[in-house]
């Protein structure tokens, strides 16, 4: 702490978040791990104390400089507490010096909530895996097994965008058309409905293989069709676009525990195309393949970073930059219908796997967001949505059950009971 360098600038992907965050769009994601037994808060706290020493980069607060925001390391220690907020509630408050992540527990479940400025899903999963390994080893008095995660403190706090930015001349990106947007009544107080489906993965893999594609593409197509069947015919003049984050670590070597991702916008135009399942699958898989080429991803890093390195952007005071970024973010949000992110397989040391029921992840945003990850033979798909209507979720999960998949749903309470009912009345009675 007593070093001269107790701060770091935000990484490229994080720059947009402080400007864009608001009560209804908190930019906080939650990764939970459910066990088969009750959580012991005392052991969890000591596991967290050990974990934060490894992930020192997470012990930071967000501050405003004159030109940019920055992360400043702090002595403040994270404290575990029983879950007492809505999932993905705001973590960063202006003028208060709180940490940008939070660990809570409820019955059998441990939640790690992270403000996206600090890290992306992959970075946070490493944190949670370390925490769970330490917790379970302490709780069951097992020798702590080694995780397959190896990174020095420098590697973890590395800004990989900066590392891979070459500053070569960039090509002009093609402008995308506005996308079909979801509308409808929202829950009061900016609450989100989190609906998590835990599904045996095998029937889904079989179905994906029948369509000669991957699980991600198959589920993205199911989601796109569910959206297409739900929205008004008229709004489909605009394409339905999914915002799919790509983990850049699998394309550019990096062990950063901070942000290192990019997003692909994959759209399908139901107005001009027939919208058969095969066609949607083909379009998504072609677009994904094109978007994931090394050349394309390098180009994306160049384009993103060029904005940050632009001299005019750098010398504009934050007080002007902030509202400008907010407008840019809103404008960009109009180019996507929903978010769809696959965190992939979460692995744990073999001797600890039997204690864990599931992992799941969800994200606090003001549009429909689908997040998934898998653990052992089960896939967890979480819908987080500010909308009262759950038509898209119903269509999506019914598609999966019609394929013979067993689905187990967990829904977060939002204070209401019936869809379309007098919500405020109900709230007051409770």
């Amino acid at each position, binding site marked *: 702490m007593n070093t001269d360098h107790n701060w770091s600038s935000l990484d490229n992907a994080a720059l947009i978040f402080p400007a864009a965050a608001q009560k209804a769009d908190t930019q906080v994601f939650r990764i939970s791990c459910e066990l088969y037994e009750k959580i012991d808060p005392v052991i969890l706290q000591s596991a967290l104390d050990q974990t934060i020493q490894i992930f020192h980069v997470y012990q930071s607060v967000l501050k405003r400089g004159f030109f940019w925001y920055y992360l400043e390391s702090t002595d403040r220690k994270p404290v575990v507490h029983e879950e007492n907020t809505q999932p993905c509630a705001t973590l960063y408050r202006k*003028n208060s010096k709180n940490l940008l992540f939070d660990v809570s527990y409820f019955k059998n479940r441990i939640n790690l909530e992270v403000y996206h400025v600090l890290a992306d899903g992959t970075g946070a999963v490493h944190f949670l895996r370390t925490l769970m390994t330490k917790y379970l080893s302490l709780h069951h008095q097992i020798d702590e097994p080694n995780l397959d995660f190896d990174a020095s403190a420098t590697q973890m706090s590395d800004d990989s965008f900066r590392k891979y930015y070459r500053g070569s001349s960039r090509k002009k990106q093609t402008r995308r058309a506005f996308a079909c947007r979801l509308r409808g009544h929202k829950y009061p107080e900016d609450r989100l409905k989190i609906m998590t489906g835990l599904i045996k993965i095998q029937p889904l893999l079989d179905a994906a293989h029948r369509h000669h594609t991957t699980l991600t593409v198959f589920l993205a197509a199911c989601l796109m069709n569910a959206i297409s069947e739900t929205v008004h015919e008229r709004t489909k003049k605009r394409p339905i676009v999914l915002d799919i984050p790509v983990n850049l670590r699998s394309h550019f070597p990096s062990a950063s525990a901070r942000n290192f991702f990019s997003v692909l916008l994959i759209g399908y135009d139901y107005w001009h195309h027939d919208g058969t399942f095969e066609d949607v699958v083909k379009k998504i898989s072609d677009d994904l393949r094109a978007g994931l080429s090394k050349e394309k991803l390098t180009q994306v890093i160049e384009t993103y970073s060029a904005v940050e390195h632009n001299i005019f952007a750098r010398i504009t005071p934050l007080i002007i930059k902030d509202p400008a970024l907010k407008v840019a973010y809103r404008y960009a949000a109009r180019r996507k219908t929903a978010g769809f992110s696959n965190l992939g397989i979460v692995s744990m040391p073999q001797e600890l796997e039997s204690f864990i029921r599931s992992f799941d992840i969800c994200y606090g945003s003001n549009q429909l967001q689908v997040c998934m990850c898998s653990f052992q033979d089960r896939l967890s798909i979480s819908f987080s949505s500010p909308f009262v209507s759950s038509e898209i979720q119903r269509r999506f999960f019914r598609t999966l*059950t019609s394929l013979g998949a067993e689905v187990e749903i967990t829904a977060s309470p939002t204070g209401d009971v019936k869809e379309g009912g007098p919500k405020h009345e109900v709230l007051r009675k409770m």
Partner: protein
Amino acid sequence: MKYCEKCKVSIRGKDTNCPLCQNRLSGTDEEELYPFVPTIYRQYELFFKLLIFSTITIGVLCVAVNLILPDSGYWSLFVVVGIACFWISLIYALQKKGNIPNNITAQVFILSLLSIGWDWITDWRGWSLNYVIPIGCSVAMISLAIIAKVTKMPAEDYIVYFIIDILFGIVPLILYLTGQVGFIIPSVICISLSVLSLTALILFEGKNVLREMAKNFHV
């Protein structure tokens, strides 16, 4: 575990209806999986509504009386401007209530601007430059130094604001040199304090000052 016949999905928790299709569920209750989070009513909301309403009432009454009695001059204008000043200052103070150094600095700045404006529309007697600005700056510097010492505030929390206060303390010097100041005692005190603070800051916190500058002004 509960079950929805229509959706063919199992539902965990205590819901009576399917979260997907709202049909009734069969099966037995389980423990709830999320805590109950009560609705948060915004604190003090009524208090502020009453405060807003009463200040607006005062403003409207004054303007109305003034219009009925036009011979008494434009005194209601001062009331309205006064109310606006009160609200600007209060809103800022509440927004930044967690950051005292920022609040002190900003309040001095707001009050100085408002006093100049006030002085200007009332025939420019110069009291804003003679008294308000130098006294405000002095108070800001002294109080910030005391608060930082007493609460053992870490350097990164106050240094930038202290520097801004010191720089602001130079304004009376400029005013003095350009002959704008009639009554010089407050200005002289403020300038002396400013020079002393700057010296102390460089001597005792020089390293922290450089680090804070690098952080706050990195481009």
